[in-house]
């Protein structure tokens, strides 16, 4: 996992023996990893392996089936497929709303980091996909959270925007933040660790054990019937 530095640095995120379920079925199990400040981890694996489900479980949207997740005290900043922008509101209004939700006063630094000052008053619906994603990233900056959870952050982005995204994440890592990203596309973040989820795919529960409802069906189900 992340390289151990000399003095034990407090981990931003520690996941131990996590099992994740989708539609009542365990799909990933035995996951253990942690993120030190400045570390980035990319979840790789074929589509449908459970990257998004794992990310949503860490974000707290889904209850884990088993295992523990130690999150930073101040909580996480999650960014899903959609950017959560209100098309009718302007860039500044959208950002100011999220700033007040996260208790941050000033949105100017975030705007300038994503060079969106020029579009501050334009309604969000007139932005291009790349600009919308940059506004999503600006939201993360405004949240002031050290742990970023990003789901497919570079989907529908052109090369320049991907570069800008990588720069923003690097800056965040440099400030001691951490990022957990789920994607099957190259992010242009060479220093990020990779975690292939194929190794953690949940095997059908062997006879006799296996927690939860579906695990309880072992062996021929109808054996119980006269």
């Amino acid at each position, binding site marked *: 996992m992340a390289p151990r530095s000399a003095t034990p640095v407090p981990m931003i995120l520690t996941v131990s023996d996590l099992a994740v379920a989708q*539609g009542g079925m365990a799909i990933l199990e035995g996951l253990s990893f942690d993120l030190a400040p400045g570390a980035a981890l990319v979840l790789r694996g074929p589509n449908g392996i459970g990257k998004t489900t794992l990310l949503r479980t860490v974000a707290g949207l889904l209850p884990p089936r088993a295992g523990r997740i130690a999150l930073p005290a101040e909580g996480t900043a999650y960014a899903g497929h959609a950017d959560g922008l209100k098309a009718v509101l302007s860039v500044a209004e959208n950002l100011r709303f999220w700033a007040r939700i996260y208790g941050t006063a000033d949105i100017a630094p975030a705007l300038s980091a994503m060079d969106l000052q020029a579009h501050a008053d334009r309604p969000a619906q007139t932005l291009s996909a790349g600009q919308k994603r940059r506004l999503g990233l600006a939201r993360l900056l405004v949240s002031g959270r050290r742990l970023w959870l990003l789901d497919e952050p570079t989907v529908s982005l052109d090369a320049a925007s991907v570069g800008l995204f990588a720069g923003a994440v690097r800056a965040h890592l440099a400030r001691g933040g951490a990022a957990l990203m789920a994607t099957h596309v190259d992010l242009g973040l060479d220093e990020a660790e990779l975690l292939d989820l194929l190794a953690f795919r949940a095997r059908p529960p062997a006879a006799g054990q296996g927690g939860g409802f579906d695990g309880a069906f072992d062996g021929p189900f109808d054996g119980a019937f006269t």
Partner: protein
Amino acid sequence: MSIWEYANPKKFMETSSWALPWVTGLAVVTLLTGLVWGFFFTPDDYRQGSTVKIIYIHVPAAMMAINCWAMMLVTSLIWLVRRHHVSVLAAKAAAPVGMTMTLIALFTGAIWGQPMWGTWWAWDPRLTSFLILFLFYLGYLALWEAVDDPDSAADLTSVLCLVGSVFALLSRYAVLFWNQGLHQGASLSLDSKEHVSDVFAYPLWTSMAGFVLLFLTLVLLRTRTEIRARRLRALEARERMA
């Protein structure tokens, strides 16, 4: 053996498979004796003539309609608190039975009232409460059908059942307030059997027991089917994953 043992569906299936024949037999016997006894061997009521015989289906059905929702409330609570899969599947299994009982109570109540009220439907508060209860059952079942993910379906329907129960009670008293009511008086009301003279009461108790056993049989049967459906879904998902 605490009921949490039955969280394991296999355990529930084993126990229910040997219990089912007994419950079914008992239900058929009790129901038949109750109804035959009430129908053939009791005198007519001096005021209502033979329509009093409808008591043997209307009162038990009405009672079961309410008790079934109460059972669904308890099982929903067990699901929300203990994530007890079989419990929520039992609630889903009981809903159609409760709805049928409500329909029976509504129809027999309307038919029974027709000679005295002169109309088929007179917005009597007690019957209207059952009409409202029927709408709650309808909403509950529609919600089960509308949600795909089994776990979130269980959560949503359980929350709806909790909220629905509060509002069902509120509607019960709102309806009484809204229309003073033409219902039979206390003698045949749901909650006070002792007003009914003994010759009617014993067959009534029997047919009520019959309805309860019938309810139990149907819920056991349907819960087993729900568990099988859930197992089928799990196997299909596992097959897709492999």
